[in-house]
């Protein structure tokens, strides 16, 4: 019997159309709502020259050797209770093969207030470590050689103060600022947009960011002065494309502000870094990371005229998605995190935090923190995925999705520009509303079972086995309060009050504030005292609450 030859593509289309299709009502679009075709072929490949890693526009990665040259940094975000306890956890993580530190501060520290402020009640040491003054910072890094490790600090409104404390501890260890390596989050725009840990109004907030970038360009040249973050935007409910677009728009707003200060693009752009979320929709995330590099490279070279290749390269840290974790059947979070971490690695991340399975319930225990770190080691050393540079490059699907991400981001840039830029868009609640809309859409899809979260809206179990969670001893609160009061008693009062007076005067003028903050820190002024001095000059910001 003779079979008539059919055109293969035509044949596939006919065969697909005559095949049964699942009708479980579950969306086939990405988690962000991008419609997907069931099959991608070479017809979907963008018509552009073959890109290569280590070459403009870096879609395939910023290093020609990918992870063959160097693996990503395994950087677990941690901090809880007191500086002393967190110091112990850091030593434990370093002993277990972690390659960089990442400090989580508690809410009072993040909000620039001391542990004995009335509104710190109940918050001390709960979601990070409590740092009130240089004395706590000395304890936090006791016995950890700051010249040999790199440290990331997740802090924003009071970022300049914490950086100065780090510089001061290094000085005491005999380590000059010029060799210090690490990252300061210092991204105030995404605070206004998503995480909402703002204190000062936008203009003085931006001044502090530019002050720290300008200061570090001269004094702490190996420091990543800012980690422009999509993570919080995504966790607040945005789509992948919104995360990409809003984050890069923030990045350009910082570039504009530094240029306005009179800095040359190539003097600061190489130290800008980024921070993205790795959510559960595997391919969409990989496409997002690839698109981010391409867009940034293009804008830096073409719009800002950067000539140093390092200014074109978007380097980023990734954290797996906290929002994708479930309190129900929490052990499943290990599997979710592994999938998300793999997406980050295939997307070419420079450093990675993997969430612990119990982070949805409380701070991670030693055991769950170790499993999270081991998940990264498994990817690096067992799975083989680090052996090939950008292994998904050239995939019909990935390349098409990368282009789609880029297209959607460019559309948002246009919209933001039409509103007048990032800060006017914040003041008009543009981002906040976009994010709340996306969060609500996703929640509605879950309610309708058009999206499934295992253990939450399907595949549930009746009996939950409780897992151990880490609890913060309530005595810690009074101990930390006593500690900050002792610091105030013991310090040289004249040196401290002079430092704060000088800072206040400088804040009212135009000087770079970093040297003044550094002096106040060295004089053991507390974080709250320094912030309150600045608030006297800058005022505070109140958000218009939109639902």
């Amino acid at each position, binding site marked *: 019997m003779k079979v008539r030859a059919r055109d293969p593509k035509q044949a596939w289309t006919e065969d697909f159309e005559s095949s049964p299709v699942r009708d479980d009502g579950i969306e086939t679009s990405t988690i962000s709502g991008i419609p997907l075709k069931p099959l991608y072929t070479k017809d979907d490949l963008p018509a552009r020259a073959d890109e290569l890693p280590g070459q403009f526009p870096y879609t395939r990665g910023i290093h020609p050797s990918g992870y063959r040259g160097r693996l990503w940094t395994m950087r677990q975000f941690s901090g809880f209770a007191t500086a002393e306890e967190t110091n112990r956890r850091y030593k434990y993580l370093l002993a277990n093969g972690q390659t960089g530190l990442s400090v989580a501060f508690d*809410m009072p520290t993040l909000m620039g207030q001391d542990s004995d402020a009335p*509104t710190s009640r*109940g918050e001390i040491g*709960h979601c990070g470590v409590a740092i009130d003054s240089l004395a706590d910072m000395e304890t936090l890094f006791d016995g950890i050689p700051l010249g040999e490790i790199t440290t990331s600090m997740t802090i924003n409104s009071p970022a300049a103060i914490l950086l100065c404390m780090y510089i001061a501890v290094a000085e005491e260890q005999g380590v000059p600022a010029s060799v210090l390596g690490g990252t300061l989050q210092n991204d105030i725009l995404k605070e206004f947009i998503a995480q909402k*840990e703002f204190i000062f109004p936008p203009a003085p907030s931006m001044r502090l960011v530019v002050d720290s970038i300008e200061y570090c360009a001269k004094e702490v040249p190996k420091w990543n002065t800012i980690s422009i973050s999509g993570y919080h935007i995504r966790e607040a409910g945005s789509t992948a494309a919104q995360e990409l677009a809003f984050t890069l728009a923030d990045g350009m707003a910082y570039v504009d502000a530094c240029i306005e200060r009179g800095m040359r693009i190539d003097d600061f752009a190489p130290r800008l870094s980024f921070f993205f979320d790795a959510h559960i929709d595997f391919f969409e995330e990989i496409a997002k990371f690839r698109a981010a590099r391409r867009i940034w490279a293009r804008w830096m070279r073409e719009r800002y005229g950067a000539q140093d290749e390092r200014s074109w390269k978007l380097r980023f840290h990734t954290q797996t998605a906290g*929002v994708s974790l479930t*309190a129900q059947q929490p052990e499943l979070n290990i599997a979710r995190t592994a999938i998300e971490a793999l997406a980050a690695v295939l997307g070419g991340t420079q450093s990675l935090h993997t969430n612990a399975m119990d982070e949805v319930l*409380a701070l991670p225990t030693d055991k769950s923190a170790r499993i999270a770190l081991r998940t990264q080691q498994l990817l690096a050393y067992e799975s083989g995925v680090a052996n090939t540079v950008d292994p998904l490059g050239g995939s019909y699907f990935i390349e098409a999705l990368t282009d789609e991400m880029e297209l959607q981001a460019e559309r948002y840039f246009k919209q933001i520009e039409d509103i007048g830029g990032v800060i006017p868009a914040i003041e008009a609640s543009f981002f906040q509303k976009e994010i709340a809309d996306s*969060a609500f859409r996703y929640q509605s899809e879950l309610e309708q079972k058009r999206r499934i979260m295992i253990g939450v809206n399907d595949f549930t179990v009746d009996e939950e086995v409780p897992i151990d969670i880490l609890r913060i001893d309530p005595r810690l609160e009074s101990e930390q309060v006593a500690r900050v009061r002792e610091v105030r008693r013991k310090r040289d009062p004249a040196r401290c009050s002079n430092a704060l007076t000088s800072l206040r005067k400088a804040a009212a003028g135009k000087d770079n504030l970093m040297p003044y903050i550094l002096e106040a820190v060295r004089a053991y002024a507390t974080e709250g005292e320094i912030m309150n001095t600045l608030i006297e000059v800058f005022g505070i910001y109140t958000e218009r609450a939109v*639902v």
Partner: protein
Amino acid sequence: MSPTAVRPVRIIVAKVGLDGHDRGVKVVARALRDAGYEVIYTGLRQTPEMVVDAALQEDAQVIGLSIHSGAHMTLFPAVVQELKRRKATDIIVFGGGIIPDDDIAALKKQGVEQLFTPGTPLQEIVEWLRKRLPTSPA
């Protein structure tokens, strides 16, 4: 308004504590509004005193609290205490956030009537309110 109309149920939805994680509170506020309640969202960083002030000023029957910083054991009972102090114990208090099971039991004993944790269907919150408040919108 017709004279027989029942006064709409008004809910103060508030973020207490220092954290700014407002995704959950906004989603819940929208769902309650869609279910026919009058919802007033206070915004971020409300102290227990501010929340109770708002509830009394707005003549609210219900207060919904949200927190993600771990300070719930301090701040949720503080709202209940403040209601007692202001003799407004008829106002129902419920809450949500990242709250371990053991804490839920303890908070219920201290007068927080119900707690909803991540993954709770919005409908479950609405149904709980309807049962708890027979005058709820249908």
